[in-house]
């Protein structure tokens, strides 16, 4: 047996600008064990709920993450609406769905770029991020914000997207999809990408499920869990089926995200086709008294906002379980038997968001 050494990975690493630390136990160049550490920048945002009125906390929820910010606002608002039995207008549900899918698009394109960068495929990184820019432009155009949209609120949405703008978005989807399919073709079919990713960081279906993994990470192992199937927001009207791959390796996790880009474009197209006229919000009366585990499918997987109110304007507890926290155990299981040079690619394959984790 070779002598074992411990190599620290992070909290600062070129492929991962956010702070997570792994102690990698190596035999020669092969990882035999990985021990994670987080908590370098824990912000304690859950406790801020005690000092902010329940309607104001939407702004805090949106700032948990700079990528899936809108979906945090949707998850939080949905939780309050369930506790208070608020019937949100259908048009607001559709607008939430459109902005959510735009968020998923830009998140996956961001990840595809970072993943390409992690593989050393710089040109692919630039192509991915160029496409992401056009999604950010749409978000800015429709909400006023590229990172924080600020359009979701308890009881509905703050802003409408006019018919002319929706038609313009619809017209832009076809050429955008064509560009995305050109990009996806490289990720799915390029020999160097396949050689780099296939057979790496394999997690079988049963193990992925037992570890409690979520999002594209678990769907790449053949487990069809996607909370959009439950039909929250407008997904029930749009007829959604999860994207699933079966090989459970880094290539499969990449393939799921590439195909989810296509699925998101299709969902936006259908949401624009079907969006009903009507009000954007309802007036919120009273204060929340009760509890609810609100669940939404973010780009990285299922997020949970557990909210509890006691009939005052301040909630007594918000507990936020982010997808990356749920995906840390599966990451620990992916790394053994990987080569040291492959560790950055394997870590990136779960699309870690430490900002979310350190809520």
């Amino acid at each position, binding site marked *: 047996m070779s002598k074992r050494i411990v190599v620290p990975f992070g909290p600062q690493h070129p492929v991962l600008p956010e702070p997570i630390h792994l102690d990698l136990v190596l035999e020669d160049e092969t990882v035999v064990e990985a021990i994670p*550490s987080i908590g370098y920048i824990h912000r304690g945002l859950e406790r801020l709920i005690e000092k902010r009125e329940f309607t104001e906390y939407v702004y805090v929820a949106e700032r948990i993450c700079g990528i899936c910010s809108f979906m945090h606002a949707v998850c939080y608002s949905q939780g309050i609406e369930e506790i208070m039995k608020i*019937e949100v207008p*259908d048009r607001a549900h559709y607008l939430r769905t459109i902005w959510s899918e735009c968020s998923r698009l830009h998140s996956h394109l961001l990840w595809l770029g970072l993943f390409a960068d992690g593989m050393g495929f710089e040109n692919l990184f630039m192509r991915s991020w160029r496409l992401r820019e056009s999604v950010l432009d749409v978000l800015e155009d429709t909400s006023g914000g590229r990172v924080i949209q600020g359009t979701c609120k308890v009881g509905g949405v703050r802003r409408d997207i006019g018919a002319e703008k929706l038609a313009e978005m619809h017209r832009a989807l076809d050429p955008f999809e064509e560009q995305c399919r050109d990009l996806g073709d490289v990720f799915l079919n390029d020999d160097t990408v396949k050689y780099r990713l296939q057979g790496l960081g394999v997690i079988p279906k049963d193990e992925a499920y037992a570890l*409690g993994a979520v999002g594209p990470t678990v769907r790449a192992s053949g487990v069809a869990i996607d909370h959009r199937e439950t039909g929250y927001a407008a997904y029930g009207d749009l007829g959604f089926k999860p994207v699933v791959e079966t090989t459970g390796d880094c290539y499969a996790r990449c393939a799921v995200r590439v195909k989810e880009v296509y699925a998101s474009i299709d969902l936006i197209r259908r949401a624009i086709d079907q969006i009903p006229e009507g009000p954007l919000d309802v007036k919120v009366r009273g204060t929340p008294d009760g509890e609810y585990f*609100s669940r939404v499918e973010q780009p990285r997987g299922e997020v949970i906002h557990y909210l509890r109110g006691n009939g005052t304007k301040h909630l007594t507890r918000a*507990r936020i*379980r982010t997808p990356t926290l749920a995906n*840390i*155990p599966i990451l620990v299981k992916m790394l053994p038997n990987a080569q040291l040079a492959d560790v950055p690619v394997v870590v990136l394959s779960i699309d870690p968001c430490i900002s979310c984790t350190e809520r």
Partner: protein
Amino acid sequence: MTVNEEQTIINVALDDLTREVEGLQADGYRLVQIGCTDIGGAYEVNYSFDRDYQYRNLRVTVGPETEVPSISSLYWGAFVYENEMHDLFGIPVTGINIDFKGTFIKTAEKYPFSVTRRGGDQCRNA
């Protein structure tokens, strides 16, 4: 569309926790999360599970010094939540498969989420 998801919350005694979790595991439920709520002098610990989008929640109520048995022998990934329970609330969890002994989440103040343990609300940044 309103969600209208049925969410079952079952209060269980601490002594029955492991048996109940074993039952859910045998029924094919996945562990979704473990979370704590400080209810003033005690903690509610919610163990959340899901199977085919059916949400089940086991709830145990424990005192500040009560030792809670780890379920990481049943659900390997539980260690992230159990270390979090200890680091943010100070709840002692015994038998965690990967026990960071208080260093999983590094906070400037000990047990920042536990009003009970800290003797009052000292949330400085709020």
